């Protein structure tokens, strides 16, 4: 026997999907038989089994290994088996066609590099033919061969094949998928599986096996920026090893790593291994252990990256998800978000839409039931390190759990939300705050009221500016030290270098928050009138003031701050769009303004505002009166 050390053959994982009874299991049986991949005796065993049951030979029994399945004639769970062509080996993941077994289809298809989509030539495109394509798209399976099966039942009609090809291609096109091939087959008889069928002489494309062998292995993730989710920290001996599997990119000994969300950095000292040569670098897919040049306190759940290409940090993001749990997902519902090795609480802040399983058109809904696909917004009290799924196939995908079982899987979109990293990063460190010679108490004494911030928030057209200006007038008349910060006086100077992208808007609001805090410290009542759509930005403005007033208090020992007051100027989108005083909504609808709040960018209403002025119910005068009373009650001090 001549022995030669061969390198392992290439393996490709494929999934077979399609509507129930469109012939998946039969196709698998046939593929095995025709490629000579059946184990010895298996064909005979199935033949015997069929004879005992008094039925014709059934290829499907090869896959449906379970007793219960043989009885019911359906595939219950995802099974994986192997066959080989001259080019490489294949693992087939058989995905069942019953709607209630969709979680198994997802379990199976999620790891596939290519998909075979079966359509019955007689029945044509069915509900699951559409659903499965939709899911494949969501799961990121991009190489697809459509197999029009049971061509024998339509007399190998070229016209019928052309009809189905046209209709299905057009549907797939609407999802942004273009199938690589559409092949007419008759799985039971083996037409166009391995051998070109004389019964489809009109068909010039590849056979199924030729199509399969033409697919490419999944693109390597090592070309993307580095992502290394920390899985565990080991101290079995004197080494402190951070363990994890590189999700994308590559790392080298000596690289500086940034850990998110803790925002700490350190250099890679070594890549550790047991019973393997020492490595100087490692790449996507490898399970590694690294040591650092500094003893950082890093836990499971941190994401390591390079400093210059770090994940986006946000408390909130948009997601497209498929819901697998028997109990529905509800607006406001609380779940565990699993982002690689991280596990944090999230709530469902909004449900943008649910896709109709028949037509796949989006419709509004307050709940998402089992097997639905929905677009939602998720919010966490913790800062999240996020990647967009369209760029990062691995780290852009998450699951939701109830702390026990997986309830949903989804993809991350970063559209519309700012990166909060630079807002929480303090760059200058050698600053010492100096105590003022005049205390906040002395200022309040002279003015008859402490300084503070009235932070107006609401949609464009809700009435913020109008109320702010009228309120300033009235408070000034009543002897208050008051000043309005609005878009005009801020955007022209302080924020002249900023645009309207989410990051710029967040930075603009951060600056306004800090400036407002300074004005308040000087004893003024500051009124701000900005849409300020993001809750995290408003919370940060509140913290900016709290910080400076806490400092003032620690220096003067007199509690004198007037505090931060979030005032929600409330009117819904329909009302605001109807008012449209500056014609902005019209422009936004026409696509002339990008990222317009309420239309193409989100607005997050306050959770617990100090005051609500509902301008759908109150006119301007009544709204201002309400605010004046509020200020009199909260700020006025006897001189």
């Amino acid at each position, binding site marked *: *026997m001549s*022995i030669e*050390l061969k390198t*392992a*053959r*290439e*393996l490709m994982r494929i999934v077979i999907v399609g509507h129930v009874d469109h012939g998946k299991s039969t196709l698998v049986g046939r593929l095995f038989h025709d490629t000579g991949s*059946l*184990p*010895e005796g298996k064909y005979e065993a199935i033949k015997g089994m069929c004879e005992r049951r008094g039925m014709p030979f059934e290829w499907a029994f090869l896959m449906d*290994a*379970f*007793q*219960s399945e043989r009885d019911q004639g359906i595939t*219950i*769970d995802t*099974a*994986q*088996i*192997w066959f080989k062509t001259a080019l490489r080996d294949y693992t087939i993941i058989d995905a069942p066609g019953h709607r209630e077994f969709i*979680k*198994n289809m*997802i*379990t199976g298809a*999620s790891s596939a590099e290519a998909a075979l989509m079966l359509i019955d030539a007689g029945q044509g495109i069915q509900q699951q033919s559409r659903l499965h394509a939709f899911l494949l798209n969501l799961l990121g399976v991009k190489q697809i061969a459509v197999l029009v099966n049971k061509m024998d039942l339509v007399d190998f009609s070229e016209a019928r094949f052309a009809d189905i*090809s046209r209709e299905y291609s057009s549907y797939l096109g609407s999802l942004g998928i273009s199938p*690589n*091939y*559409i092949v007419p087959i008759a799985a039971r008889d083996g037409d166009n599986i391995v051998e070109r069928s004389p019964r489809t002489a009109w068909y*010039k*494309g*590849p056979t199924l096996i030729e*199509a399969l062998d*033409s697919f*490419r*292995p999944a693109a*390597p993730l090592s070309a993307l920026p580095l992502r290394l989710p920390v*899985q*565990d920290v*080991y101290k*079995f*001996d004197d*080494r402190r090893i951070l*363990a994890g*599997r590189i999700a994308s990119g590559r790392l080298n000994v000596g690289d500086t790593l940034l850990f998110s969300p803790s925002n700490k950095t350190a250099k890679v000292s070594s890549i550790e*291994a*047991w*019973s393997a040569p020492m490595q100087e670098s490692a790449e996507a*897919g*490898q*399970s590694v*252990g690294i040591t650092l040049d500094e003893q950082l306190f890093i836990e*499971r759940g941190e994401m390591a990256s390079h400093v210059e290409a770090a994940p986006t940090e946000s408390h909130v993001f948009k997601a497209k998800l498929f819901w697998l749990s028997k109990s529905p997902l509800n607006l406001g519902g609380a779940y565990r978000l*699993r982002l690689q090795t991280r596990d944090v609480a999230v709530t469902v802040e909004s449900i943008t839409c649910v896709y109709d399983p028949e037509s796949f058109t989006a419709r509004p809904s307050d709940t998402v039931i089992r097997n639905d696909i929905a677009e939602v917004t998720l919010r966490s009290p913790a800062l999240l390190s996020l990647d967009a799924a369209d760029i990062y196939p691995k780290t852009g*995908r998450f*699951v939701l759990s109830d702390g*026990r*079982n*997986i309830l949903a*899987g989804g993809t991350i979109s970063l559209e519309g939300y700012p990166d909060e990293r630079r807002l929480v990063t303090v760059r200058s460190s050698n600053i010492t705050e100096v105590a003022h010679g005049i205390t906040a108490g002395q200022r309040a004494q002279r003015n008859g009221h402490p300084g503070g911030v009235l932070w107006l928030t609401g949609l464009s057209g809700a009435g913020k500016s109008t109320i702010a200006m009228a309120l300033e007038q009235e408070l000034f008349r009543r002897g208050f030290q008051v000043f309005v910060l609005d878009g005009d006086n801020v955007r022209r100077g302080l924020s002249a270098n900023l645009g309207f992208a989410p990051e710029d808007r967040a930075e603009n609001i951060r600056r306004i928050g800090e400036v407002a805090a300074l004005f308040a410290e000087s004893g003024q009542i500051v009124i701000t009138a900005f849409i300020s759509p993001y809750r995290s930005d408003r919370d940060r403005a509140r913290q900016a003031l709290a910080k400076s007033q806490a400092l003032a208090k620690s220096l003067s020992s007199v509690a004198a701050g007037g505090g931060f007051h979030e005032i929600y100027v409330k009117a819904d989108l329909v009302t605001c769009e109807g008012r449209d005083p500056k014609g902005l909504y019209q422009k936004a609808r026409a696509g002339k303004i990008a990222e317009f709040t309420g239309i193409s960018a989100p607005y997050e209403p306050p959770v617990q505002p100090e005051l609500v002025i509902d301008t759908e119910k109150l006119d301007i005068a009544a709204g201002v009166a309400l605010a004046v009373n509020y200020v009199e009650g909260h700020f006025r001090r006897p001189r």
Partner: protein
Amino acid sequence: MTAAAIYLDVPGEQPAAVMDHLDQLEAQSVYILREAFNRIEKLGMLWSLGKDSNVMVWLARKAFFGHVPFPVMHIDTEKKFPEMYLFREIYAKEWGLNLIIEKCPPVEATDPTLPPAARSAARKTLGLRDTIAKYGFTGIIAGIRRDEESVRAKERVFSPRGESGAWDFRDQPPEFWDYFNTDLPAGTHLRVHPLLSWTELDIWRYIQREGIPMVELYFAKNGKRYRSLGDHDITSPVTSEAATIAEIIAELETTRAPERAGRAMDRETEDAFERLRAAGYM
């Protein structure tokens, strides 16, 4: 349809992969073992002394940098081959294993409706059940593979077991994108399967690459060798001349005989193995 045009476009550029197939399998198994170690409070690993088990212990030492940081269990039917007991003694020491040996109950304790060889195998199920209860394990790492047997092909990597150790294959939780279900209600436990995606050939190629020691029964003597090791009374050798790892690999590349052909309990009746699995067999 422009299928032909697309087809012609195919031989595209792919950067040379640094990781080969065995590297990928190893990395995935290491990831699974580390997840199990991090997420499961009372974790143990089954060590049957067979080829898959030995690869699994080896992978644990890869994952934990030379250590096996949980107990390794041998559920002993006391009917193994003498070569296997010798192997156990030598390598438990050499590999620094925290070894637990527990004996199985007698055959009389098993389900009398099962065929004879399956009853004999079912002793291991009972032995495992008792061991789990005795030590309070909440997770058991087992070296099963999908290609061994069609029932095992349906397994999850993290597979929950009811209080009786039973496996409900009809209602398994979803598992995708390497997110595993790792938290369980009290009284139940998880089976963790780090070798699920490996094939018999992968195992031997990895043994060859890593130089992992094996029980000598796997290598042919006088025209016979064991492909799968179980109790001596229900396991039979196959006809083979493969006396080295390289020869075994060459043999497996061409054979179409199933691996467990020598394991009697798999084929007594159509559903015997499925019943064993549902009751908690490995």
